[in-house]
Structures are given as C-alpha cells and as structure tokens.
C-alpha cells in the first residue's frame, strides 16, 4: 500500500500522548477492579476467628486387642454404620468403613478376629497417589478425604494396602449432618473426626466399651500419660503389614 502524503487525513488519528493517557487510566482502573475483591477477601479471612484447630502436638491413635475380640461380634461395625449414616449393606458396591476380619492360620489352624478400618498411617499411600490432594493427612494424624476436591479417580482405593477406602457408587440422600458423603467420591473411616473434635471418642470405641468387651482404646499417642501410650509402651503391639513401614496410627495386640 502506498502512502499518499498529499491527501489530508479526514479522521484525525489519536496522538501518541493521548493514547498513552488513555492506557494509563485504563491500567489504573483495571488494577483497582482486580484488587478490590481481593481486599474484601482479606477482610473476610481476617474476620474468621481461629479456634484451636488440629495440631501436630497430638497424634490420635487406636489400640485394638484382638484377644478381646469375639468372632461373631459386630458391635463396632453397627455403631460406625449408625454414627456415619452408612447403609450397613454388604453388596460389592456398598461402602464399608469398618469390617470384622476372621483370620485363620493355615499351618496351625488357630483362628482370631479383629476389626479393620483406615489405619491412619503417618506415611499414607493414599495421600501420595491422590492427584488433586483431596486425600490428606490432618496435622493430628487423621487421614481424611476432602470431598470438595475429590474427582473420584479411585487411585487411593487402588493404592490402599488395607482396602480401607470405599467408593460411593450411587446417589445418597439423608446424610448425617456431621458426616457429609456423596456419590462419585472416595471415603473411609474418619476416626469419627466430628466426635474427636468435640472431645469425644469414635463410635466404635464407645460401642465396644459400652458392651463390656473393651477391645478398642483410643487416645493421643503423643501424650506419654494417656492410657494408649502407656499400653503400647508396656505391651508389644504391632501394625498390620508392618513391612510397608507406614507407621499406622491403629495398632493391634495379639497379631
């Protein structure tokens, strides 16, 4: 295209200085618009009062005495189902957060029974493999699923060495307000985190104690004065699949 210098321009093009001025005002305006919501958010964040919260000074754990666990008893399982709003069904697609294992030694014929649930490992494989970070370990050692960001890929269910996790295969209604559960997400024993945060014990522990069996103790493994710490210090307790070095929060006597 040839520029014809003799032809007067009909529309005056904006001069460079006024263009710069416009851009400057626009930039300031944009900055203001972009920053303003952040300033408000900052206000909101500051407004939320911090009330304690989970701390790594505490490590919640359980000690289960397989010797005190009877082979037909399912008190802990029923209590968990009631507390957490689980259906209690045992179809292949039903969620089970705790189950009774019946174990038989094939060489000697000896049998025993114990409850199995999420072991709340200190080095959880489920946390390692979760692509979004939904599977996480709280500061006090409780391993949970953040269902707000769980995408339902089921990698954690594949990776758990204890088969502790379940996948919700169907739409749910009438969940317990303390225990949100939903379709398409992974879930497992939460160590009754909603009760623990209120200073209570998990439902399974209570049920076993109330029924008089006393096979499960719950407590703070980091507190040397707690009953659980004293017991694990005095008696040789073990973890299931110890060779994986996961440092589980749930320990067993008699295995």
């Amino acid at each position, binding site marked *: 295209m040839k520029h014809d210098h003799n032809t007067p321009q009909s529309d005056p093009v904006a001069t460079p200085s006024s263009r710069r001025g416009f851009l400057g005002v626009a930039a300031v305006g944009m900055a203001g618009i972009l920053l303003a919501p952040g300033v408000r958010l900052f206000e909101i964040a500051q407004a*939320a009062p911090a009330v304690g*919260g989970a701390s790594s000074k505490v490590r919640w754990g359980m000690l289960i005495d397989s010797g005190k666990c009877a082979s037909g008893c399912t008190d802990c399982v029923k209590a968990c189902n009631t507390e957490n709003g689980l259906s209690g069904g045992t179809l292949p697609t039903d969620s089970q957060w705790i189950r009774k294992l019946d174990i038989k030694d094939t060489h000697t014929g000896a049998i025993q029974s114990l409850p199995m649930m999420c072991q709340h490992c200190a080095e959880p494989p489920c946390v390692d493999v979760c692509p979004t970070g939904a599977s996480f370990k709280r500061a006090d050692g409780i391993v949970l699923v953040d269902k707000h960001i769980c995408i339902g890929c089921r990698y954690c269910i594949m990776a758990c060495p204890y088969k502790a996790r379940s996948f919700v295969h169907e739409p749910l209604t009438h969940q317990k307000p303390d225990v949100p559960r939903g379709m398409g997400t992974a879930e497992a024993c939460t160590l009754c985190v909603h009760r623990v945060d209120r200073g209570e014990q998990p439902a399974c522990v209570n049920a076993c104690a109330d029924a008089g069996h006393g096979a499960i103790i719950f407590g703070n493994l980091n507190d040397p004065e707690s009953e659980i710490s004293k017991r694990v210090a005095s008696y040789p307790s073990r973890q299931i699949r110890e060779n994986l070095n996961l440092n589980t929060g749930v320990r067993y006597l008699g295995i």
Partner: protein
Amino acid sequence: MIEKARGGQCVEEPAFMRRNHMKLLMHQRDDTLRRGIRTDKYSLKACIACHASQTSQSVNAEPGNFCQSCHNYVAVKIDCFQCHANQPAGIVAQQQVKP
C-alpha cells in the same frame, strides 16, 4: 420470595451474605476440614438449622426453600447437598440414610 429463617439474626448482614456467602463457603470449608477449626459462627450445620424451611424442613428440597429459591432464579447449580445434609440434625436423626 425467600422464606424467613428461624433464628433472629444471621451471622452477617444480608447484603454482605448475598455477595460473599460463596466465598465464605469456599474458604471456611478448608479451615474446618483441613485445619480442624470449627466455629459456631461459620458452621454450615448452623446455617442449615436456621434457614431450613418450616414446611419441608430443608434448605434445598423444594423450589421455595432458602438456598434453592435464589439459585433456581440465577440458574446456578448447588453442588453442596450431594454430600451435605440439607436438613437440620434433629430432623435427619429421625430418618435413615437412603442409598
């Protein structure tokens, strides 16, 4: 029309809530779930206990209920109640979880 809540006063001003309830929900949930910080002021259960409809006992079950009324109008789907109970604790205790 949005149904009136049961309790007297909301934890924040209505104007504030209209603009920011989604931000509160997004950030408080991490505090509660990941950090274990549970407050009476910003508890979802407390919101539901106040705002549940007198007729359906829910915030979400019918079009006129508290959450649903606005969200229907602005056509923003609510994801919360796929997992969270949409009724106050006392009501749920009387029902069983239906898979």
